[in-house]
Every structure is written in structure tokens, then in C-alpha cells.
């Protein structure tokens, strides 16, 4: 009986106008979105490669002229454009994607303005996640809002239930059929997108990409299941399909507009962080204190004499300055991270936001990637510093007084760039991604279960007359 | 007076819904149009109301051609549809008020509406009740009340007693008789032979778009109307 119901529902859905319009719309957006992505990506890739070549050249020159210059030189690392950003860009352009570092420390991060046009407003990229989060979720609500209340009005519900059909079976059959129809509807769009990618050859489809695509399709299916349960709930709450529609639209607006929009406000009100001014003044105060307590001669220097005793004082002083500044900055950064994570927590009321974060985790982009690079960069910097100290130790012309900002008292010899540890950006591991994703997976499953359970309970008492 | 002169309607899919209908309903006369589903009864009413255009022929209401001057023609006709739905969120009186204004009666007061509703034996408690809570019989009564208020010389009714219980149907017929006595021309399409026999001055049987038989009251009271009707219907089946 369940199979019959599912079959009937799917036939009905496939012939409906809603499916046709959704299909056309999603095909269009998949096509345009992927085409735009391909253009953007090749441009970004080119720009990145140019930057990389310059970066390596610059570092090579520094390393070969004087290793100290390499260790002390402040550099900016930019993130590689992600090949899987056609699935989701995970707000990569708005999250910090540039890191300032030297051999002695990782100083901070910022958002690259890149080729951003300040006269263009912020926008969402038309990637797979956007299509599913906005268009598909809307379509699912439109498929489900009158699945019960509409049938009641047409009087076919009473007709069906005049037969020995358990209510649970009917409800579940409708539920499954909507999910299957929606997933079926995604196939042409995703197929088109993949075809565009393969034909243009801009993006190499590796095993990892296939795994990520599979993972994404899994969470997309989970998302569709979740939204369908809310759609079902809206249909079962009311006896009138018009009211069901209103409820469905309200829920959709809540998920898509209200929750994401107000997230920042709630976060800033409930979990404020200290201001940049207060951090700066803390740093200034720390510098002043260090200045007061620094021994005389801490600022003396002589370009010609590395072994000038004041150089050791200067090196210590600069090291102290760096440490006190970075302690304050790192505390501030941790506050920022925490606030951002809390902001995300506040948006879990919307399955659409949760789906966004899951997509980010699956593709290893956005915040997950940021944290990975942040950690890896720190680890690499430690490696680079150790290497530098090792090479410096071998130089008798160096007093080995390590000064994080200046060239006075460490080796002036160059080194073979091939031996210098080079930072390789690695994608987040499965473990990284899963540890970010599992709370959101649980939440989605919880929402689905609650919404479906409520629908079930309400449908058992639903008046079909 | 209602007149159909060679009224013909052929739809785009070549279905001949009405074939040269010639019909006249005089003042103070109730003409019942009988026929199977799809025989052309509702099409006739739709043509009189200018809801569709005739392929050929003319429909006249009080001598006004409904195709040439529909707005003028509609001043002289009231209509009661098969399933009177009206505006569910409005009360009975509010519905009457709206349709009365459309029908040209602008100055009626609450008491007037109550009086009309009493005339058709609507229960008092229903006067200010929302229409979504009305039974079918009550809704049909409200439908005829709209026609009474408009007080047009011609009335078109489409299956007015279908789905009504015998008591409600009898009350409805009584009201129609009253209106006939006010010299109104009434064209009523129905399956209900019993009511048709009870009320009609003349009866016509439609079959596949044609008016195949017309009998006056004296004639069909003599004959067995049910038998004739069924015979015609069986021929249709055959």
C-alpha cells in the first residue's frame, strides 16, 4: 500500500505545474551559476598563480640574500581559490582569507578586497548550496503545503481514508514521495552543472571532488527531508490550504530571512567583544610598560657591528614587545572566533543556516578552512623558525640574538631556498570536517524528527470531512 | 420575457452544445428545462447571461439582445446558480447587501434585508451568521432572496433544488410560485421531474443540444411525464 501511495503521489507531482516551474528554474540557475563560477575561477586561479610566482620569487631572493631577511620579513599569504566552490563558496570572499606572518609569528588575518567592486552590493553566489537552500526549499514547501489540507478540500482525502489505509502509511507515503520527487528534480541540474565543468575543463574532477560531491548530495538530501517535514507540518496544522500556505510561507521566511538577518544583532548584544580601540590601547599600554622597564640601550643599534652588546638588549626588547602584542592580539582573536561560533549557534533555529554550515564542512571551505590554515600556519611558522635558528647557529658571524623585527644580530648569510620549509596549504581533513559538521547533522535530524512526529500526531486527529 | 431565437453554440473542439434553440418564456410563466447532464441546459443559461457568445442566433431579455447590449439586458434578469456559494466570510445580510447594490437597489436597510430573509423562511439566527456555516438549503434560499431583492422581471435558475431535502425544496418551490404570480418570467433548468411537474407552466426536454419536446401544463399532466422523459433519455443512451 505504501508503494502504491508513493507511486501515485510521484505521478501526481511529476505532472504538476510546480515541478515543471521548479525544474526550469533550477536548471537555469545551475547553468548560469556554474558558467559564472567557471569564469570567476579561471580568473582567480590565474591571479593566484601570478601571486604565487611572485611570492616564491620574493622569498627566494630574500632567502638567498640573507636568511634573517626571510625570517623577519612580514609577508601575506593568500588562500588558494577552491576548485569545489561550485558546490559552495562558504562565504570565502567575506571571511578572512589573507594571513600576515613572518618567521617569528603569525600576526593576523584580514579579508582581501581582491577585485571587489565597492559599488556592487554584497551578494550570494549562485552555487549548488544557494540553489538548494533557497529555491529547492521554497519548492519543497510549495509541494507539501497542500498535500493534506488541499486533498481534504478536494475531498479526495476522505475518499482515500474510506479504504483500509493506515493514516501513518498515507502520511509517510506522501512524505517520501515529495522527497523522492525533489531529489529526482535535482538530477538534471546537477548533471548540467557537472557537464559544464567537464566540458570547460576548468576544474579537475578528482576523487576528492567526487567524494565531496557525494557528501554534499547526502546532506542536501537530509536538508530536503528536513524541509519536507516542516512543509508537511504546515499542511497538517490547518484544514484550509490557504492557511497552510500562509504558514508554510511564514516558516520559510523565518528560516531564510528572519533568522540569518538578525543573527549578528543578537550576537553583538548577547556576546559582545572588546573594541579594536580598547585592544590598541592595551597594546600601547603594554608597550609603555615595557619601555619603562627596558634596560638602557635597548634601542641602540649599529648596522656594522652585529656583536654590539646593545643588540642583545634590543633583541630582547623587541621580542618582549612582540610577545606582549601577540598575547593581547591572540586573546582578541580567540574572542572573535568564539563570537563567530556563538553567532552560528544562534542561527541553528534555521535549518537553512544549518545546511549552509554543513555544506561548508563537507567542502572544507569557509570557517573550517580558515581554522585549518590558521593552525597549520602556526605550525609551519614554528618549523621555519626552528630551521632559521638551526642555520643561524651554524654561522659564527652571528651573535644568535634573535630579534623578531630586525636584522642586527642574526645571520646575514643567505641559504639555499630549496632547503627552506615551504608552507603548503592543505585542505581540512575528514576529521576536521566531521568535527565541525556533526552537531549540525544532529540538529537537522532532530528538527526532522520533531517536525515529522508533530505532523504524525496532528494527522492522526485530522478531520478529513 | 426571455427569448431564444435559433440560439446555437459550437465549442472550439467542435462539440455542438446547443443546436438552434427556439424558446420563449412569457411573463408570469415558469418554464422548466429538463435534460440529461450535458444536454445543453446550463449552456442555455450561460448564453442568456452572456457568459459565452453564441455561434449563431440571438438571446433576448425583455427584447434586449444580450450579446449587443449585455449591461442593459442584465438589468432585467436575476440569476440563481446551482451551488450558491457566495462570500463565506460575510454574513447573510452582508452578502445580500452587496448583491442588492450590484442589482441597483442601493437604499435598503438592515430591517429590509431581515424582512426579505423572513419571507424565504430563513431562521432568524442565520441573518447575521457567516455564510461558511450555512447548510445547502439555507444557501439556496439566500440565492433566491438575492433574486427577490433585485426584483428583475426575468429569473434564470440552474438546478436550484439539487441536493435539497424535500422540505427545503418544497419551500423553495413555494417562493418561485410567488414570484411567478408577480408576473415574472422564470426559466428553470432541472433534473427534478417531481418539482417540474409541481411548478412548471411549460416543460421542455433537451437532448444533445436540441429542444426535442415542449409540453404545456395541461398536456404533461395528462401524459406520464416521467415515462416520456425516460424514453427520451434512453434514446440518448442508445
Amino acid at each position, binding site marked *: 500500500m505504501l508503494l502504491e501511495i508513493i507511486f501515485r503521489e510521484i505521478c501526481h507531482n511529476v505532472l504538476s505545474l510546480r515541478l515543471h516551474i*521548479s525544474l526550469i528554474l533550477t536548471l537555469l*540557475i545551475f547553468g548560469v551559476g556554474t558558467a*559564472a563560477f567557471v*569564469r*570567476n575561477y579561471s580568473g582567480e586561479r590565474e591571479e593566484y598563480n601570478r601571486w604565487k610566482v611572485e611570492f616564491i620569487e620574493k622569498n627566494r631572493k630574500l632567502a638567498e640574500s640573507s636568511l634573517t631577511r626571510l625570517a623577519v620579513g612580514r609577508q601575506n599569504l593568500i588562500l588558494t581559490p577552491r576548485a569545489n566552490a561550485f558546490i559552495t563558496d562558504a562565504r570565502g570572499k567575506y*571571511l*578572512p582569507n589573507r594571513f600576515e606572518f613572518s618567521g617569528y609569528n603569525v600576526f593576523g588575518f584580514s*579579508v582581501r*578586497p581582491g577585485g571587489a*567592486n*565597492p*559599488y556592487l*552590493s*554584497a551578494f550570494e*553566489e*549562485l552555487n549548488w548550496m544557494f540553489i538548494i537552500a*533557497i*529555491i529547492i526549499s*521554497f519548492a519543497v514547501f*510549495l509541494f507539501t503545503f*497542500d498535500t493534506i489540507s488541499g486533498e481534504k478540500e478536494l475531498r479526495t482525502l476522505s475518499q482515500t481514508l474510506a479504504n483500509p489505509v493506515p493514516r501513518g502509511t498515507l502520511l509517510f507515503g506522501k512524505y517520501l514521495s515529495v522527497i523522492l520527487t525533489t531529489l529526482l528534480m535535482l538530477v538534471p541540474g546537477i548533471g548540467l552543472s557537472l557537464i559544464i565543468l567537464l566540458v570547460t575543463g576548468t576544474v579537475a574532477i578528482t576523487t576528492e571532488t567526487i567524494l565531496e560531491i557525494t557528501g554534499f548530495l547526502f546532506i542536501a538530501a537530509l536538508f530536503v527531508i528536513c524541509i519536507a517535514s516542516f512543509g508537511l507540518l504546515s499542511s497538517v496544522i490547518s484544514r*484550509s*490550504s490557504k492557511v497552510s*500556505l*500562509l504558514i508554510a*510561507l*511564514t516558516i520559510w*521566511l523565518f528560516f531564510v*530571512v528572519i533568522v*540569518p*538577518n538578525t543573527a*549578528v*544583532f543578537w550576537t*553583538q548584544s548577547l556576546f559582545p*567583544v572588546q*573594541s*579594536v580601540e580598547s585592544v590598541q590601547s592595551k597594546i600601547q599600554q603594554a608597550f609603555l610598560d615595557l619601555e619603562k622597564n627596558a634596560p638602557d640601550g635597548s634601542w641602540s643599534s649599529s648596522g656594522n657591528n652585529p656583536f654590539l652588546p646593545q643588540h642583545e638588549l634590543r633583541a630582547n626588547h623587541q621580542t618582549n614587545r612582540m610577545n606582549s602584542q601577540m598575547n593581547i592580539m591572540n586573546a582578541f582573536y580567540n*574572542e*572573535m572566533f568564539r*563570537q563567530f561560533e556563538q*553567532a552560528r549557534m544562534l542561527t541553528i533555529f534555521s535549518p537553512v543556516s544549518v545546511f549552509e554550515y554543513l555544506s561548508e564542512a563537507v567542502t572544507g571551505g*569557509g*570557517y573550517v578552512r580558515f581554522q585549518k590554515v590558521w593552525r597549520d600556519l602556526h605550525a609551519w611558522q614554528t618549523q621555519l623558525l626552528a630551521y632559521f635558528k638551526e642555520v643561524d647557529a651554524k654561522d659564527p658571524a652571528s651573535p644568535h640574538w634573535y630579534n623578531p623585527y630586525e636584522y642586527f644580530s642574526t645571520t646575514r648569510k643567505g641559504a639555499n631556498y630549496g632547503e627552506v620549509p615551504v608552507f603548503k596549504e592543505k585542505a581540512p581533513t575528514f576529521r576536521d570536517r566531521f568535527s565541525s559538521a556533526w552537531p549540525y547533522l544532529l540538529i537537522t535530524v532532530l528538527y526532522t524528527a520533531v517536525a515529522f512526529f508533530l505532523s504524525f500526531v496532528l494527522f492522526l486527529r485530522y478531520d478529513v470531512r | 420575457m426571455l427569448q431564444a431565437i435559433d440560439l446555437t453554440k459550437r465549442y472550439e473542439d467542435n462539440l455542438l452544445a446547443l443546436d438552434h434553440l427556439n424558446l420563449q418564456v412569457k411573463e408570469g410563466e415558469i418554464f422548466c428545462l429538463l435534460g440529461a447532464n450535458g444536454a445543453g441546459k446550463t449552456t442555455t443559461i*450561460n448564453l442568456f*447571461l452572456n*457568459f*459565452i457568445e453564441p455561434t449563431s442566433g440571438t438571446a433576448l431579455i425583455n427584447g434586449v439582445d444580450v450579446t449587443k447590449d449585455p449591461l442593459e439586458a*442584465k*438589468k432585467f434578469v*436575476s440569476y440563481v446558480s446551482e451551488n450558491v*456559494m*457566495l*462570500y463565506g466570510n*460575510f454574513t447573510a445580510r*452582508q452578502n445580500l447587501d*452587496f*448583491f442588492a447594490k*450590484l*442589482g*441597483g437597489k442601493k437604499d435598503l436597510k438592515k430591517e429590509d434585508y431581515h424582512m426579505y430573509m423572513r419571507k424565504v423562511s430563513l431562521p432568524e439566527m442565520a441573518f447575521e451568521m457567516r455564510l461558511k456555516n450555512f447548510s445547502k438549503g439555507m444557501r439556496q434560499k439566500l440565492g433566491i432572496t438575492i433574486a427577490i431583492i433585485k426584483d428583475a422581471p426575468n429569473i434564470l435558475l440552474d438546478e436550484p433544488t439539487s441536493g435539497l431535502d424535500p422540505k427545503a425544496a418544497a419551500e423553495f418551490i413555494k417562493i418561485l410560485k410567488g414570484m411567478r404570480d408577480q408576473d415574472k418570467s422564470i426559466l428553470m433548468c432541472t433534473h427534478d421531474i417531481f418539482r417540474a411537474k409541481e411548478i412548471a407552466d411549460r416543460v421542455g426536454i433537451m437532448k444533445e443540444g436540441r429542444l426535442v419536446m415542449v409540453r404545456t401544463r395541461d398536456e404533461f399532466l395528462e401524459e406520464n411525464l416521467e415515462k416520456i422523459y425516460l424514453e427520451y433519455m434512453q434514446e440518448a443512451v442508445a
Partner: protein
Amino acid sequence: MIISIALKEFYNNLVSARFAIGFLLCLVLVPLTLIVSINDYKGKLREYESQKKEAENSLQVRVYSKLHPEVVRPLKPLSIFTRGVSYNVGSKVKILLGEKPMLSSGGSLVRENPFLNAFFSMDFITILAITLSLLALLFTYDSCSGEREQGTLKLVFSNSLGRAKFLLGKVIGVCLTLLPITLFCYLLAALVIILSPQVSFSVMEWISIGVLFVVSIIFFGLCMMVGLFISCRLRSSVTSIIVCLFIWVLFLFILPNLSTYAARSFINVSSREKLDLALQEIDSEFNSKCDQHQKSMEEPPYGMWYWNYWGGEYGDYEEAGSPDLVMKYHWQLNQFTEPLRIDYADKKWPLQKSYLEELDRQRKFAERLSLLSPSEIFRLAASTLCGTDVSAHYSFLERTREYREEFIDFFKNKKIFESYQYFTRQPPENLMTLDEIIRVRSGGLVNNQQELSEWQRLNKDGFSVLFKVDIPGSHNEDYEPLDLSDMPKFNWQQGTIAGNLKKCLDKIGMLVSAGVLLFFLSFVSFVRYDVR
């Protein structure tokens, strides 16, 4: 009769569930959005305050070469209603001799935590557009099809009523329904603003809001016509609402993003880095010309140091206490370099201009594509009315460029490049020779450069001998900031309401004509509408 139909429609809508839910939605969304916008505005205000302070500080300079006035565009309180571009572009412009102002700085929505920029927020007008358009569609999608299904349509048309009158009555009825909702939204917004301590609107702002209200009415009128038209084309209400809702999602959620994304992807803008490199090359050319000229001049005896020399990133510097020949040398050099610097700024400008034109082309493409969506037209008109649109910002930047010319004229007229005050406040008559400086500072221990070198060789104590006696007036800090009361001040008139209205008249016209066209098409469709 039209009135009867309109009143019937109005009352019918009033008691329906959609009115209640729509009302509730507005009740929740409007204050929430405004509070969020006001919060963001507070952040912008903080940034503005600190920029203003910096601008004031930029005038506290002792020498003219360090004078880089900063100009800050005043914050528009109406940006609470619609941000336009005002939160993306910065509001600070530095006036430099060596470069014309290209873009303002300090942009991007100011949040202490850059991660929070990953959360987009919609402004009041966007939320209003979403809500109003949805409600308009929900109230009109079944104007014809719904009544037909109900059976009341044929009952109505069994009376002597023309189709145009009926349609008009319907439209007026829906207007009567939605007018109070829109008014309510604006009144609620006004209440929230009045109750917020950080925000104060002047009369101009309130009038602008009034005009905005009228434009909102026009917008939702257009949305109503869309719903009406679809209802007149389709016989089934269910089909009608499905089509309406997909159109709604397309125009409000997809098209705005699509137009910007397509513009970014398909309209090329050369990279900022490339432009910066090209500008740097021109600067290098300037620097090498200066170097060349410098080499052609006779080098003064520097001694082994500069006293109190502070250089800046724009080639500005300040010095005091240097030997007279050194000062004269710089004085002569300035008369070559500074006018040349201004010439090189003019050389850089064509490159900057073409970059700006590319940005504008990309933006125009996005804007034109987005005009397919009525809500985007509405938003663009709203941001013009609130003074947060691109053209207002362009006029601000134009004004800063004009101001730079005034500033340069001020320098030229006052012959500042030819004045010592360009780089030092030490009066020229107080300048001392190198030997004199050495003698006085060492307290007579050494009397000239030669003796100093000898002393250093013997004593290995670096320069401490030169710190025995201080010469007053040989430190930059000894002098007060310049008196700039005769310097031209930057003034800029923000657009007037009438001016802004004129600028967006074309967009309002688009909304009105689209509405009229749709009504006409609805009427044409409805005349043949099968009422059975």
C-alpha cells in the same frame, strides 16, 4: 458600484487569515529589521566619529608638507532605511598632492569582528519589499480565479456590471487593504526611530520618509497588478498562487543575486593590484626624476646625521635643527619636486579614471540586469531618495577632487612650495652652520666636523658628545601647529529632496508604467475571462 465592490473586497480581506498573518509578519519584521539596521548604524557612527577626529588631527601639523587634509563624508541617518552603497564604500578621503582621490577608504560594514561580515543583513527597504510584494500577491492571486471557483463571479456578472468596473473595484479594494499595512509599517518604523536615542532625524529626513512611503505604495501597486494579471490569465487559484510565488522568489531572491554575480563574472575589471603596480611605476619615474635633479644639485655637508627628520609615506617630511646649507638644499629641491609631484598626479589620473570607468561599467551592468525585478527598481529608487546611492557618492568624490584643486591653488597662491615652512618651522634667520651646531651642542668640546670625527675616534662613544647642550628651536616639537584659518574648507551639499526625487523619477516612472501596462493587460485578459 465600484465602491461596493471595493468595500466588499476590503472587508473580505480584513477578516481573512492572510491579513492577520501579514499584519503579524510586519509587526515582527519591521521593528526587528530596524533594530538591526540601527545597530549597524551605531557601528558606522562610531567609525565616523573616529574618522572625524582623525580628520581634525590631520590639520594639526607643523609644516605644510605634512598637511594632508582628510575629508569625511557625513553619515546619512536615512541609511538605516536603505544602505545603498554607503556601507560598502568608505567615507574618508585623504587629500594628497601626489594623487587625485580615486576611491574613498574605510569601507565595508564596520563590525569589530571581521568574521561577522559573513552574515548578510537586509535593510528595512529590502524587508519591506519582500513583505509588501508577498502580501500584494497573496491578496490578488485569486481576485478572478478565486471568485470564479467560489461561484460568486458569475453571480456578480449576472448583474449589470462592466468588467472594467469590477476590476477597478477589486484593485481599489486591495489598495484599501494594503494601504493600512504599509502605513502601519512606516509608523512602526517611525516609532522605533523616535525611541532610539542614537538616531535623530531632521525635518528633511521625515519628508524623505514620506516620499519613500509614496514610492512604496507605487511599488506594491505594481505587485498587485502582477497578481491581478496572473489571476486574470489563469482559471485555477492554485495554479495562480504557484505561478505568483515562483515569480516572487525569482524577482526578490534570485534576480538580485544573479545580476550582481553575472556582472562580477562576465564583466571584466582589471585587478586593483595591476593598477597599483602601474601607479607605482609612475611614482618610480617621479622618484627617479627627483633623484636625477637631486644629483644635479650640489650636495650640502650633511654631517653624519639629520636632526629631527621625520619622513612620511607621501614624500612629506619635517625637520628642524639641521645645518643651514642642508635646509637650503631641501628648500631648493622642494621647488622642483613638489610641482612635479602635482604633474605626476595628473599623469596617474587617466589610469585611475579608466579603472573607475571599468568599475562603473560592471556596476551599470548589474544595475541594468536587476531592473528586470520591480523590487530592485524600488530599492534603487529608495536609495536615491535616501541619498545612499552611487550617484550621491560619485558627486562627493567629484567634490573632493575639486577641493584638491582648491587646496593646490591655496598652496600656489601662498607660494608655499617656495617657503621654508613647507618642511621646517625653524625661521630661516635662525639656521646655523654645521660647525656652529657642533660647537654649541658639544658645549665647546668640539668646534667643527673635523674635531668631532677626531673625538669619536678617540673616545668611541658615538654621538653622546653632541647631546651636552640643547639648542632651543632645533626640535620639531618646539613649534606650534600651523594656523590654517586661511585654508579653503571642504564643503559639500548633500542632495535636496527635490533633487533626489528628480534623479529617481525614471525608476518611479518604470514602476508606474509597468503597473499601468499590467493593469491594461489584466483588463484585456479579463474581458475574455470565462466566469463560469
